[in-house]
C-alpha cells in the first residue's frame, strides 16, 4: 500500500513538473525558439524519403550535389546521385556513420560525438544564438516557418532554417559565414513523410571498414596521450560561447596510419576543431615532403569557406585549429595550447 502511495506521489510530482514546464518555461520562449527546439528533435521522431539538392561554396566555386535520403528515427541512408559525390552512399546508424565512395572498395567509419541532440546542446544553442522568425514560405510543397539563427554576442556563422510547420523537419538550411556570405544551401526538393524503408535500404555499404574518426566514453586527454605518444592538452583559450564537447581520435582517411587528437568545441550550432599531432603530418596520398608549416612558433593560416585553418608548432607537436570564427581567434587558440 505504501509503495502505491509512493508511486502516486511520484506521478503527481512528475505531472506538476510537466505543468510547470508548460506554464512557466515554454511561454517565455518565443515562437521561433520553440520551433527551433521542436526542429532539433524532429529527426528523432519522423520518417521520410526526400530528394535533396545541396550547393556548397569551396575555394571560391559553387559545387552542387544531389542526393536521395531515406530517413527513419534510427537509421538514415543517403545516396548521392549528382556532382563529385555521385554514387557515394552514407549510412548513419546508431552512433556511427559509414561512407563509401563510388568505385571504392572500402568504407570510412566515423563515430558520432552526439548521436542525438542533447539538452545541453540545445541549451547552448539558445544561450549563444537568437532565433528570429523570417516569415512563411513553401519548400518541397510543404508550408514552412523560416527561422534565422544569429549569434548573440560576437560575429560568427549564422543559419537560416526552413522548418516544416507540421513535422518540424528542417527542409532547407542556408549557412552563412561570419561576414554574412552564403556558403552552403541544402534544400529538400521533394519529401514524403512516413514512407517505409525497404529492409535492405539501411544496409551498411559493403567493403573493408576503415575507422577515420572515432569518439567514445573512453576517449579523453589521458587515453589519447597514451595512444599518440605525446601529451594531449586543452588550449588555455577558446572563443566565447564555445564549450568542450569531446575528444576524438582522427585517423587520416588515406589509410596511411597517421593519427591526431581531435578536440571538439561547440557553441550549440558551430564547432571549432583543435587537432594535435606529433608533427605536422602530410599524408602519404599527397606525397608532400615538407612536414613543417614554417619556423617554430610561426602560425600559418589557410582560409576556406568552411572555416579558416591555423597551424602552429607548439614544442614537439603541431596544433591545427579549424573553425568559422575570426582567424585571429583561431591563432589565439592554437598559440594557447602547450
Amino acid at each position: 500500500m505504501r509503495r502505491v502511495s509512493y508511486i502516486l506521489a511520484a506521478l503527481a510530482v512528475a505531472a506538476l513538473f510537466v505543468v510547470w514546464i508548460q506554464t512557466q518555461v515554454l511561454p517565455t520562449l518565443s515562437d521561433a525558439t520553440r520551433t527551433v527546439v521542436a526542429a532539433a528533435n524532429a529527426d528523432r521522431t519522423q520518417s521520410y524519403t526526400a530528394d535533396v539538392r545541396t550547393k556548397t561554396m569551396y575555394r571560391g566555386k559553387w559545387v552542387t550535389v544531389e542526393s536521395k535520403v531515406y530517413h527513419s528515427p534510427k537509421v538514415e541512408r543517403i545516396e548521392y546521385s549528382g556532382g563529385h559525390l555521385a554514387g557515394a552512399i552514407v549510412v548513419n546508424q546508431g552512433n556511427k556513420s559509414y561512407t563509401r565512395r563510388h568505385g571504392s572498395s572500402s568504407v570510412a567509419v566515423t563515430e558520432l560525438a552526439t548521436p542525438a541532440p542533447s539538452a545541453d546542446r540545445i541549451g547552448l544553442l539558445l544561450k549563444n544564438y537568437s532565433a528570429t522568425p523570417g516569415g512563411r514560405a513553401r519548400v518541397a510543397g510543404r508550408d514552412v516557418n523560416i527561422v534565422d539563427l544569429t549569434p548573440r554576442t560576437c560575429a560568427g556563422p549564422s543559419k537560416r532554417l526552413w522548418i516544416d510547420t507540421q513535422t518540424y523537419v528542417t527542409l532547407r538550411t542556408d549557412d552563412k559565414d561570419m561576414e554574412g556570405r552564403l556558403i552552403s544551401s541544402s534544400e529538400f526538393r521533394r519529401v514524403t513523410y512516413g514512407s517505409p524503408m525497404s529492409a535492405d535500404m539501411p544496409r551498411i555499404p559493403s567493403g573493408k571498414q576503415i575507422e577515420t574518426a572515432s569518439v567514445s566514453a573512453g576517449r579523453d586527454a589521458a587515453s589519447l596521450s597514451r595512444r599518440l605518444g605525446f601529451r594531449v592538452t586543452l588550449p588555455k583559450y577558446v572563443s566565447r560561447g564555445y564549450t568542450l564537447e569531446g575528444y576524438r581520435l582522427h585517423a587520416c582517411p588515406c589509410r596511411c596510419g597517421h593519427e591526431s587528437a581531435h578536440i571538439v568545441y561547440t557553441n550549440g550550432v558551430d564547432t571549432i576543431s583543435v587537432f594535435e599531432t606529433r608533427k605536422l603530418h602530410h599524408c602519404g596520398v599527397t606525397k608532400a615532403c615538407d612536414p613543417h608549416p614554417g619556423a617554430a612558433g610561426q602560425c600559418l593560416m589557410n582560409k576556406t569557406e568552411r572555416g579558416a585553418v591555423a597551424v602552429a608548432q607548439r614544442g614537439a607537436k603541431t596544433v591545427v585549429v579549424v573553425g568559422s570564427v575570426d582567424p585571429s581567434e583561431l591563432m589565439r587558440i592554437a598559440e594557447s595550447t602547450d
Partner: protein
Amino acid sequence: METRVDCEYIRGLLADFSEDNLLGRAARRARDHVAACEACADELKTFEATADLVREKGLREPPVGLWNAVYNRITDPARAPSVARPAAGLRLRLRIGAAIAALSLVILFGLSYVRRPQPPSVANAVAAEYVEGHAVGSRDGLFADRFSLTSVAALAEAEQRENGRL
C-alpha cells in the same frame, strides 16, 4: 425575337466580344443580342468571371532561394558584368587584342612553370586534411548541414590528392 440559332451563333462570338475583338456588323449584332437575351448575357458573365478568377488565383509563388541564386551571381567576382556592346569594328579589334594578350599570358605562364616548378602547396594540402576532419566531425551538430559537410569533406580529400600530384 431572338431565336435559338441566334443564341448559338452569338455564343460562338462571346469570347471575342469579351475581348473587344469583333468588328463592324458582328460586333453590333453581338452587342444587341446580349442586351436582349438574358441567357447569353449570363453566358458572357462567365467569361468575365473566368478572367476574375484567373486574376485572383493565377499568380504563382516564385521558388525559394531565387534571391540567393541572384545574389551569388551578381556578387561573383569572377563574373564580368554585361555592358553596352561596342560597335562591330571595335569588337573585332578588342577580340584580336584579347587573343594576343591571352596568348602572351599563356606563353609567360608556361615559361615560368618550366623554369621554376612550383613546390606543392603544403599549406593547402595540410589545411585540406584538417578541413576534412573538421567537416566530418561537425556533421552531427545541431542543424548541421550534413549534406554540405559531406560534400566539403569529399572536396577537401580530393584537394589533398590533387595537391599531392603537383
